[in-house]
């Protein structure tokens, strides 16, 4: 699920305020944006690229390998199905507050078609020096520099802070994979960990999780068998149970999704769990061969 610099990217919802703002930044950074979609503005251009009526038309006209959706919550199901039916194999769904049954429908269709979904409710992905897809400050070199540390995060803001701390410690990132803050998401911590494990440009992984769900526990099981070092930070140790902490997926219900469960699963797998994000540089230094 790593989007590379050679990929041709479609932006669904390119003519909206956020769509056009971030499309322009993606293009400026070097992402190969081939076009956008807005059925009402088909035939026009936006950010210097053509606007198509739908993803199928974009596929027939220029072709694309990844799509980024800047689409309001209730329109996402149809837009994502449009991209999947057009043959797109990588979708980045940024939108928050998509009804969960819509998300499950899209994930089932993607699974059948062999397409991968990043998100929903993600800030997207950055491959420093190559491209980015979403709304991350890829262009800020205090935060993103080409390097060999992979970062996985449920949160955009916290993931950004982790990347900032990595750069301050002298490291750079091979890829930042924002997986999203919703309870049901396409690419899980485990999926992202597997793809960074397989990536030859990645030497170590920082896994940034949150309370809620059992994704970190599943990733821990896999991390136990990895040769590459993994360090982790889990947000929400000081959060009260039973409350949705901003992200729909960040909620402790009964004894499920607790900080303690995630930390002990990760530590049992040999993953160092940080007490504060500022420890990330030292932790990486401590587990990489000098």
């Amino acid at each position, binding site marked *: 699920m790593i989007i590379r610099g050679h990929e041709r990217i479609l932006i669904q919802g390119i003519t909206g305020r956020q769509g056009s703002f971030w499309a322009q930044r993606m293009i400026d950074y070097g992402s190969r944006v081939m076009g956008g979609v807005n059925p009402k503005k088909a035939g026009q251009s936006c950010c210097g690229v053509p606007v198509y009526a739908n993803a199928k038309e974009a596929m027939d006209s220029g072709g694309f390998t990844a799509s980024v959706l800047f689409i309001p919550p209730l329109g996402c199901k149809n837009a994502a199905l449009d991209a999947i039916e057009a043959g797109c194999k990588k979708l980045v769904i940024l939108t928050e507050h998509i009804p*969960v049954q819509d998300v499950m*429908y899209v994930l089932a269709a993607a699974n059948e078609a062999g397409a991968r979904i990043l998100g929903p409710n993600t800030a997207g992905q950055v491959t420093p020096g190559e491209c980015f897809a979403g*709304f991350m400050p890829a262009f*800020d070199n205090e935060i993103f520099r080409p390097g060999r540390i992979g970062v996985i995060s449920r949160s955009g803001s916290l993931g950004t*802070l982790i990347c*900032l*701390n990595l750069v301050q410690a002298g490291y750079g990132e091979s890829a930042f994979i924002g997986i999203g803050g919703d309870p049901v998401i396409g690419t899980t911590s485990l999926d992202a960990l597997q793809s960074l494990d397989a990536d030859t440009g990645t030497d170590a992984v920082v896994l940034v999780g949150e309370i809620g769900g059992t994704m970190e526990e599943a990733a821990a099981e896999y991390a136990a068998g990895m040769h590459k070092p993994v360090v982790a930070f889990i947000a929400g140790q000081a959060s009260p149970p039973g409350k949705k*902490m901003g992200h729909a997926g960040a909620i402790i219900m009964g004894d499920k999704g607790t900080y303690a469960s995630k930390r002990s699963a990760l530590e049992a797998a040999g993953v160092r769990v940080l*007490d*504060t994000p500022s420890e990330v540089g030292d932790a990486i230094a401590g587990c990489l061969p000098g």
Partner: protein
Amino acid sequence: MNFEEHAAKPLLRAEGIPTPKGIVAGSAEEAREAAHKLGPCVVKAQVTAGKRGKAGGIRLAADSNEAYEHAQAIMGMRIGGLLVERLLVEQQVAIEREFYAAVLNDAASKCPRVLFSAVGGMDIEELASQQPEALHSRSVDIRSGLQLDDARNLVAVPGLESLRDPLADILLRLYRVYAGNDAELLEINPLCLAADGRILALDCKFTLDDSAVKRREALAALGTAEPLSEHEAQGQELGLKFIQLEGDIAVLANGAGLTMTTMDVIRHLGGEPANFLEIGGDAYTRATAALKLVLDNPRVKSLVVNFCGAFARTDVMTEGVIKAVQELQPGIPMYFSIHGTGARLAREMLKAQLGLASFATMDAAIRAANAVPGRSAS
């Protein structure tokens, strides 16, 4: 969004799942009248909390006088922290056997999951830990929905052969209620076989997916809003997620993950956070409203402002905080850590307009906030 039993059961009936005859009562007097019409009945507290029975909120009444007495006792109780203001008075059912049935959004399989157990009445956590073999479940492809064969397999339990078709039929209907109402969770516990052979839902728990409220407005109007403090309600109106906590270090941060982390690090470094408050987006007016919320707390001794901009622009958020500080003149010290999108401009504005510098790291800002005199911890 959770629904009280009386608001959830009509959804079942609309798909043909029977429930006992019942009447909602807003007072003990109304409960007496209801019982007069229904005969021997059950008086049930209407709150969206579990374990109502154990708390004494569900009581059998042989006649209307007894129903009145029970209603008087139950009205005004607090169950799971929730005040009982309504009762559901239902006709008693002679129970032959109890079952459990549910459909829920399953994050692990990313699919709807249908559950059935021939052991009903205890809550699902107890059942799953005590008799996991009795809990049948399967995930469903949401595109095609629950199929008859799958429903029949779920209810295939030795000794229940004669009920296989009617129970499978209930599951199919239950699934339709789930799919047709954007349920996050839909549970019948207990589902019962009555002595007269009917299958009835004696209780119903329904949680509407919060993200679907916008397309289910009429339905959502029947749900129970989450009980919020005054400040939490103000935050919700402004589109800000605010949660009051016990500590004295106020928190203003952007993004859910960063806000939780700010709280975590405050505690890790010896302090205690006063609130969760996440702002984001791109309107500085939200920052102004947000700062008002966190400062309206007499316990607060200091404030940590922690911005790390990705989508959210730190210059816009900082502009809002500066305006709010100028307007409110808070009498507490403030410690900023600003990074990410727009950070350079944000730091310049902060220096020029408030004479404050942004700390080099979040930890440094939090250490300073935790060290404010008047705090017992250090």
